[in-house]
């Protein structure tokens, strides 16, 4: 699948709670086929003190209406500049990049686990799984109720379970502490979120011999495998998160 570099028009900039927002981008011609887990590299214009593109997961794709969506959290100057973009303006993207989550064997019990902005690729993945006759459960973790976002969207995929660190909504604690994990035995877990969460989920899966894929968000420059900056230590040596990932099976990871 060829990578593209294109300027795409913003159809909508939808602010969510706190520092989250969603950008809807219209295809420049027909949008290319994208896979769950893939990402885009966005050039940020008008941000004088940032320099590199920003890698952002593909949150949702609507081939019928020829647009796709990115769920973004403001974490620094680049994403802050990005949050101010208006409908009708354009963004320069290199996409679609990276590998993708793999389909589980038929009939598998599937769980999606997302933390914070790491929930982003799981909507696209969940819809894809659903269209392939899986009925995934979804476990989402946030810092507090003020940051709980997009529950209704994820309810379209399957049953949604929730934790917040302070207990202000859903169960109190981290995702790996949710009682639902004791109730059901899953065959496949897909996970995206902050590194400490990924490590906890990986530990949980290893102890129970559950097949698990995680999506990493390592710092990267080029996104196309040229700079070798975003490497992760694997059983096959240093691999690029941008081209060999961002999705890795935990059995390949050294952490």
């Amino acid at each position: 699948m060829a990578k593209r570099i294109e300027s795409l028009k913003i159809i909508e900039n939808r602010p969510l709670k706190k520092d989250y927002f969603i950008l809807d981008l219209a295809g420049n011609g027909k949008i290319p086929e994208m896979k769950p887990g893939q990402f885009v590299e966005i050039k940020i214009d008008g941000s004088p003190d940032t320099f590199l593109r920003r890698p952002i997961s593909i949150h949702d794709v609507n081939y019928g209406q020829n647009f796709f969506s990115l769920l973004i959290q403001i974490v620094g100057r680049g994403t802050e500049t990005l949050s101010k973009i208006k409908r009708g303006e354009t963004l320069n993207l290199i996409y679609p990049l990276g590998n993708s989550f793999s389909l589980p064997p038929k009939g598998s019990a599937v769980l999606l686990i997302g933390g914070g902005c790491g929930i982003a690729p799981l909507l696209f993945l969940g819809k894809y799984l659903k269209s392939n006759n899986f009925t995934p459960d979804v476990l989402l973790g946030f810092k507090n109720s003020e940051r709980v976002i997009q529950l209704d969207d994820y309810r379209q995929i399957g049953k949604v379970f929730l934790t917040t660190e302070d207990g202000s909504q859903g169960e109190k604690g981290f995702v790996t502490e949710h009682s639902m994990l004791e109730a059901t035995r899953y065959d496949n877990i897909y996970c995206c979120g902050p590194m400490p969460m990924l490590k906890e989920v990986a530990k949980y899966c290893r102890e129970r011999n559950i097949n698990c894929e995680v999506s990493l968000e390592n710092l990267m420059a080029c996104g196309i495998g040229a700079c070798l900056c975003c490497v992760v230590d694997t059983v096959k040596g240093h691999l690029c998160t941008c081209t060999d990932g961002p999705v890795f099976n935990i059995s390949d990871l050294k952490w």
Partner: protein
Amino acid sequence: MVNLGFDIGDLHFKNPVITASGTFGYGSEFDDFINVSDLGGIILKGTTIEPREGNPYPRMVETASGMLNSVGLQNKGIDYFEKIIYDKVKEYDTRVIININGNTIDDYVALAERVNRLEKIPAIELNISCPNVKMGGMVFGTNPDSARDVIRAVRAIYSKKLIVKLSPNVTNIVDFARISEEEGADAVSLINTLLGMAVDTRSMKPALSTITGGLSGPAIKPVALRMVWQVAKAVSVPVIGIGGIMNASDALEFILAGASAIQVGTASFIDPQISIKILEGIEKYLVSKGFLDIKEIIGYINRL
């Protein structure tokens, strides 16, 4: 029709835009975006005798108008290059140059001997300026005697074009350019990255696993330009300018200051088509200024 070509000795390049080592992979990473064969040349990523894993993550951090990296020459070694990569890169209709690195003089010599046999690799870029490895690399490029020894040893056994890539992390880069020329280098390329560092105040740790790394991007352009200007006046071999070139205007600054050709590096991370855009921009500039040959403007500022 404007003549954009330049020569290193009897090796002709169809235009002066070359992609810098370590920023362009082996070319194929860019096949979706440009016709790599339109470039004057590509310099393949730094290659060593043995495979290298490079430094631990994190090894990149964005800085004001630039980035620091400490990749540390991750590559699969010369055997893998010969068996797998060479067959692919030799299909490009451009000058394909390999950047070589060693821990010892023997490493450099052994690599140069291997590359000498590869028909479609007409030149070596001798990397004596990588700041991100403990042994070799910049150790050679920051000591005049070591630089002389390694260039001499490679020159003695390598018959094709030898380009020496110089480190800016020295008191006087001109000394190293002169040594390169005296020892038989056919060209010099400069600058490699500037040694720098960054601290992550959130984690209260160095931003890079190696603490220090190499600074690249537009932040270093004025420094690079000054060094290229100094070196171009001091040596008679071609000078290839590198350092923060983001557009045709930047490239032209280097050429006007004395560079015969330029390398595009970090800019390719942000725009994978930038090398071709720079080439087009250079041609357009020459046409608009009424020049027929790029050689007319090399070192133009020094004639004033």
